[in-house]
């Protein structure tokens, strides 16, 4: 068993505008099961952050408890990290984000951490439009405690040692849409071509960005009869369209065929290029997104890709009109400007 990655990397690894290679965004070697979908998601996060040329020290990765929540150890080894209490990651992000709005907050959670113990926390982070990326590594089971059904396990789906699940599943994208989420996407750990641009778009989005990533548990939930196995997801995934992400700094060089394509400029100036959109979905219309989700679900399909985005999203800081400067950088002088200023304020109210 190898506990260390060799230090050697491909000698021709591409270097981003900061002079970093992908290796600079890696973390420790994974201790998850061999073949775990979570490792692929970690790989996609590494790629997205490298390609966006993010400074590792400007990122905070936060998680709760579970296999998913162990994962942040395995990427972005040079970023800030907080492995919090079960289901309480959104509260920690809220606090951190309020104190320092300048960091990029990357929350990593699982189906148990989000849809069971952390459900209340999740709901309120969504409705407040907290500026963060919220990735759910969703395997439909409790992998860390030997594979019991989780709240996102589909009715009728059976894990390796289990009976068909008698309860209906919580659909996180559907729930998030209802709670007012401003960026909702679903993807699959086995499809980096789709996942990487979605992560990049979520990072550039201002506000709460949910990516529900179906991530098969190879050990307990990758068997025939499970709706979260590699085979089942590959057979039943239906993409909303392809997503291409062009960072602000780069010129759009690719030429796209005319037709069902759409370019969206994000808050930070990046461009999201959507192509071959499903005819029944307008990803900028919440109702259309909700209908499409329900429709595909009823047909036994798993809708993946960008499901909904609010182009005019205002995050929690915008709504609360907080200081542009991060609160943690405000000094006593800034916060208690003295009698003269107080007198002015009082005078303005007379």
């Amino acid at each position, binding site marked *: *068993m*190898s506990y*260390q*990655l*060799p*230090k*050697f*990397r*491909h*000698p*021709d*690894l591409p270097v981003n505008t900061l002079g970093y290679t992908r290796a600079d965004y890696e973390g420790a*070697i*994974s201790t998850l*099961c*061999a*073949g*775990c*979908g979570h*490792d*692929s998601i*970690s*790989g996609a996060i590494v790629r997205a952050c490298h390609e966006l040329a993010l400074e590792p020290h400007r990122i905070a990765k936060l998680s709760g408890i579970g296999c998913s929540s162990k994962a942040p150890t395995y990427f972005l080894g040079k970023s800030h990290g907080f492995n919090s209490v079960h289901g309480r990651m959104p509260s920690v992000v809220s606090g951190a984000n309020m104190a320092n709005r300048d960091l990029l907050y990357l929350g990593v959670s699982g189906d148990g951490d989000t849809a069971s113990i952390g459900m209340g926390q999740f709901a309120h982070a969504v409705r407040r439009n907290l500026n963060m990326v919220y990735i759910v590594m969703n395997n439909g089971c409790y992998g860390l405690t030997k594979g019991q059904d989780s709240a996102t396990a589909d009715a009728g789906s059976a894990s390796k040692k289990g009976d068909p699940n008698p309860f209906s599943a919580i659909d996180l994208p559907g729930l998030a849409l209802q709670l007012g989420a401003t960026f909702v996407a679903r993807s699959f*750990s*086995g499809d*980096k071509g789709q996942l990487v641009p979605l992560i990049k778009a979520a990072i550039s989005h201002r506000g709460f960005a949910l990516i529900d990533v179906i991530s*098969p548990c*190879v*050990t307990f939930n*990758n068997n025939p009869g499970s709706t979260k196995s*590699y*085979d089942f997801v*590959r057979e039943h995934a239906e993409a909303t369209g392809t997503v291409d992400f062009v960072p602000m700094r780069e010129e759009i060089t690719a030429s796209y065929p005319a037709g069902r394509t759409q370019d969206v400029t994000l808050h930070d100036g990046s461009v999201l290029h959507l192509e071959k959109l499903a005819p029944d979905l307008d990803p900028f219309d919440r109702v259309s997104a909700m209908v499409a989700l329900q429709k595909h679900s009823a047909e036994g399909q798993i809708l993946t890709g960008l499901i909904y985005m609010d182009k005019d999203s205002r995050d929690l800081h915008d709504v609360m009109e907080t200081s542009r400067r991060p609160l943690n950088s405000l000094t006593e002088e800034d916060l208690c400007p003295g009698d003269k200023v107080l007198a002015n304020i009082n005078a303005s109210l007379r």
Partner: protein
Amino acid sequence: MNPTDIKNPEYFHKVVDCQYACPAHTPVPEYIRLIAAGRYDDAYMVNWESNVFPGILGRTCDRPCEPACRRGRIAKGEEPVAICRLKRVAADNKADISARLPQIPAQKNGKRIALIGAGPASLTVARDLMPLGYDIDIYDNQFAGGGMMRSQIPSFRLPASVLDEEVGYILDMGVVTQFNTEVTSLKSVLDKDYDAVFVGTGAPRGKGLNLPGLEEAGKQVHIGIDWLASVAFEHTTAIGRRVLVLGGGNTAMDCCRTSRRLGGEDVRVVVRSPFADMKASPWEKEDAMHEGIPIYDNHVPKEFVVEDGKLKGMHFEKVEAHYDENGKRSLVPTGEDLVFMEADDVLMAIGQDNAFPWVERDLGIEFDNWDMPVVDKATFQSTNPRVFFGGDAAFGPENVITAVAHGHQAAISIDLFCKAEPVSNRPAPMTNLLSQKMGIHEWSYDNQIENDKRFVVPMAPLEETLRNRKLEVELGFDVGTGFKEAERCLNCDVQTVFDTPRCIECDACVDICPTDCISFVENAEETELRTRLSATAGNLAQDLYVSTELPTRRVMVKDENVCLHCGLCAERCPTSAWDMQKFLYSVTKAGQ
């Protein structure tokens, strides 16, 4: 691309860069692991079976394996494993291996073979044929076996004791030696009714430069290889204070370093070509410069300057190298004044030629336009089916390890010929592919990649080695350093073997591979496919390993170029679609 046929033994053989580059295809990683395990006898025997002279080659090999070594290209500044000097570690630390040498049958097979020349090629033929029951006579004009290894390689690089030991292993098999015997007629040998004759007489004629003043300079101008032989046989014991060595190959390096030991104080190497183009191995150039010998490149010798019947020095013309678009070099004079260098002696080491004045031209042996015998590249048979050639005698000057490779193949041919079988029936190599799995994520090879830089071989103090021509300069790795250097080996013979039906396309191998070797992509033609991978596969000398089509209509493509053979793909594979399997490839020898 079509799926890779891993059943073809050459596919995985090529992945083992060192072994593939070695003319004798010595299983390098196999013996390096044995050295790391402290099994020096076993490591020595793996070598001995394949290259016959581990102790000699561990000091003097041209080491084509090292430039090929994968370790040298996995990162900038990373150097190949010191394969050659590790071989010496096995030779230095082995116990008495005589009991492990092949048994020589008391009952002979009745076939008699003559070997002309007792150099590495002939000795290899003897080594392969003696255990099969052949009677072998070996002829050489020197007083002992070894050929150019004895006459041209100086003792400070190869001590006589090492040479005697390894030549002895073969001669002691019962070879009948006819030393101090110059063969002056091949016909006379053929007339002795040998069943086959092998010519391994090397490339014995040193080239000279016929420049103005040569005749007058007379005795102060020497042919390099003749002079080295004369030193080795102790006919020459001194040289002048100022010595010019002309030439840029390894013989020139041996000449200049020997001169330093025989009284040369101002010894210079003067070479026509630029320093980088010199034929000498980089390490031999370094060793010469370490001994205070400057190398003057881009100097073309023009004339010997002789005054009062005595050599004063030489004139050289300064040139510049120009390369045309095909890379062809021309040396263009710079127009500067001729450079004069003083000299008491001049050694010419500008190349050597084959010479067969002793081969009669009516024996059915065809000679080509360059007066070289026509020899089959695979069987080493000449146009007289009873006569075989090998080593430098076959295709011109090469090196010891090439001569050994020739010897093995010629022995196969001679054996087939004596059994009246067609010599074109070349035996297939012996291969074996064996899983290294010991348990979940446990391997029977050391898959951890060490970060050490290449270790430097320690040397004896310069002032001592320059005083004593026979004192070996290199001390060899001690056991501890040898272990550490052995640990740098990437075990490229432990192959990544992919079993398509087991793959569930979870991407775990792609994510874990530290050097981005693995991709799952849509298939395409090779040039296109090489650009589609996780990291562009720009090294065209390295193959792509392509699987059959997967359920998602994609294929697995692995670029072999910088694979560390760390086994992480197989460790992270949930279904054992990847496995680490040790590939052993050995060239089949005569009678096997």
